[in-house]
C-alpha cells in the first residue's frame, strides 16, 4: 500500500465531512471532500483517487448513482465504500451488483471506518498486478481431479477459492456463491462417489465423522476420482461447472421434487436445496454421479 493513499469523501453534511476528514488526515491519508455527487464526479474526472467513501442519501446524484458512474465511466478499479442510515433490499442488491466494496452503517465509529478503508486498500493493492491481463481475457477454464488422499492432505476450499477469485475476478459476493456451489458439489461427490457413505455416517458429528474417515481402508478407494471442470465465458457472463464422480449416483430426483423451506429439510438434501436457489440451471446425468450447473453472473 502506498504511503499516503488519496481518498475522496462525499457527503452533503459539511460538519460530518470535516470530522471524518480531520480523523483520516491524522491517520496520514490525503483527503479531498465533495458535498455532492456532481462535485465528486468533477474531482474524479481530473484526479486519481485510491478510494471513495460516499454517503448514499444525498440530494441530486445519490451515492448509488455515484457508485454506478464511477464503476462505468471513471475507473471500475476504485474501491467505493457507501455510508448509509437505511438501505432497502433492492438498493443493497443493486449496490453489490454495481461493485460496492463495503457498506458502513450510520452512526459509525471512525475507527471502524478506518479499518474498512485499510482493508479495501490492501485488497485492491493485491489484485493490481493481474488487472490488465484480466481485461483482455474472454474465456477461461480450470479443471481439477481430486482423490481420497486430497481430502486428507489438501485444503480444498482454499484451493478452490484462490482459483475462482482469479478465474472470474468478480465482486466477493459472486465469488462466495460460486465457491459455495463448488464446495457443496465436491462434498456431495466425495460422499456419494468416492466413499458411498451410508446416512448414519453422514449424521455423525464432526469428530465421529473424522474418526470414521481415519479408519477407512484408503487403498480400497484410491482408484476413485472426482473430476471438476469450470468454464467461464466473460462476454455472456456465464459460468458452468461440471462435477463427475464416476460413482453409483444417488436419488437426486426425489430430493429435487421437494419444495420446502430449508429448515423443514432433513439432514440430507439441504445442500441440494441451497444449490437450487443459487444456480440458474442444474442437470444431473449418469444416475446423479454427474452434475452440470449453470450460473449467470
Amino acid at each position, binding site marked *: 500500500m502506498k504511503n499516503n493513499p488519496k481518498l475522496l469523501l462525499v457527503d452533503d453534511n459539511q460538519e460530518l465531512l470535516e470530522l471524518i476528514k480531520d480523523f483520516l488526515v491524522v491517520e496520514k491519508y490525503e483527503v479531498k471532500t465533495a458535498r455532492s455527487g456532481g462535485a465528486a464526479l468533477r474531482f474524479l474526472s481530473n484526479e486519481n483517487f485510491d478510494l471513495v467513501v460516499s454517503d448514499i442519501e444525498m440530494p441530486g446524484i445519490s451515492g448509488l448513482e455515484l457508485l454506478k458512474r464511477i464503476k462505468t465511466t471513471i475507473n471500475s478499479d476504485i474501491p467505493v465504500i457507501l455510508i448509509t442510515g437505511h438501505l432497502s433490499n433492492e438498493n443493497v442488491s443493486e449496490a453489490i451488483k454495481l461493485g460496492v466494496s463495503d457498506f458502513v452503517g450510520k452512526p459509525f465509529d471512525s475507527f471502524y471506518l478506518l479499518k474498512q478503508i485499510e482493508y479495501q486498500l490492501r485488497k485492491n493493492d493485491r489484485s493490481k498486478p493481474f488487472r490488465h491481463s484480466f481485461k483482455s481475457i474472454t474465456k477461461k477454464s480450470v479443471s481439477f481431479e481430486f482423490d481420497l488422499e486430497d481430502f486428507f492432505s489438501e485444503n480444498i*476450499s482454499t484451493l478452490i477459492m484462490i482459483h475462482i477469485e482469479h478465474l472470474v475476478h468478480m465482486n*466477493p459476493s459472486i465469488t462466495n456463491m460460486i465457491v459455495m456451489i463448488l*464446495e457443496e458439489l465436491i462434498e456431495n461427490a466425495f460422499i456419494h462417489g468416492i466413499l458411498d457413505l451410508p446416512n448414519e455416517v453422514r449424521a455423525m458429528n464432526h469428530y465421529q465423522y473424522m474418526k470414521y474417515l481415519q479408519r477407512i481402508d484408503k487403498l480400497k478407494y484410491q482408484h476413485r476420482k472426482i473430476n471438476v471442470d469450470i468454464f467461464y465465458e466473460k462476454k455472456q457472463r456465464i459460468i458452468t461447472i461440471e462435477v463427475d464422480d464416476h460413482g453409483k449416483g444417488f436419488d437426486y430426483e426425489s430430493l429435487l421434487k421437494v419444495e420446502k423451506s*430449508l429448515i423443514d429439510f432433513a439432514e440430507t438434501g*439441504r*445442500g441440494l436445496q*441451497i444449490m437450487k436457489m443459487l444456480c440458474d440451471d442444474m442437470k444431473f446425468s449418469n444416475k446423479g454421479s454427474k452434475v452440470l450447473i449453470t450460473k449467470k453472473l
Partner: protein
Amino acid sequence: MEISLNFEANVAKMKIEGSMTSENAHIFQDKLKEVLDSDSKLLELDFSACRNISSSGIGKLLIFYKEFLNKDGEIEIVKSSPSIYELFMTIKLNQLFTINL
C-alpha cells in the same frame, strides 16, 4: 476463521471473522452448541468481518436454529458483510430470522 462468543444476561453474542469453509465449520458448530447449552434466549450473530461461508456452515446454522427455536430461542444477524448479506438473502434466510447489513 476466528469466533468470539460472549454471554450478557440471556443474550449470546457471537462474532465470526475470516472464512468459514467445510473444513472449519465444525468450530462454528461447537460454539453454537455452547449457546444451546446456555440459558440464552437470543443469539446475536455478527458476520461483518466474515468473508464467506460454506454450505456446511449454513447447514450448522439451520440445524442450530431448529433446536434453538424449540427452546424458545431467537437468532438475529446484527451485522453482515455485503457478500454474506447477499448470500443469505438469495437463499431466503431472511424468512427465518432478521438479517442486517
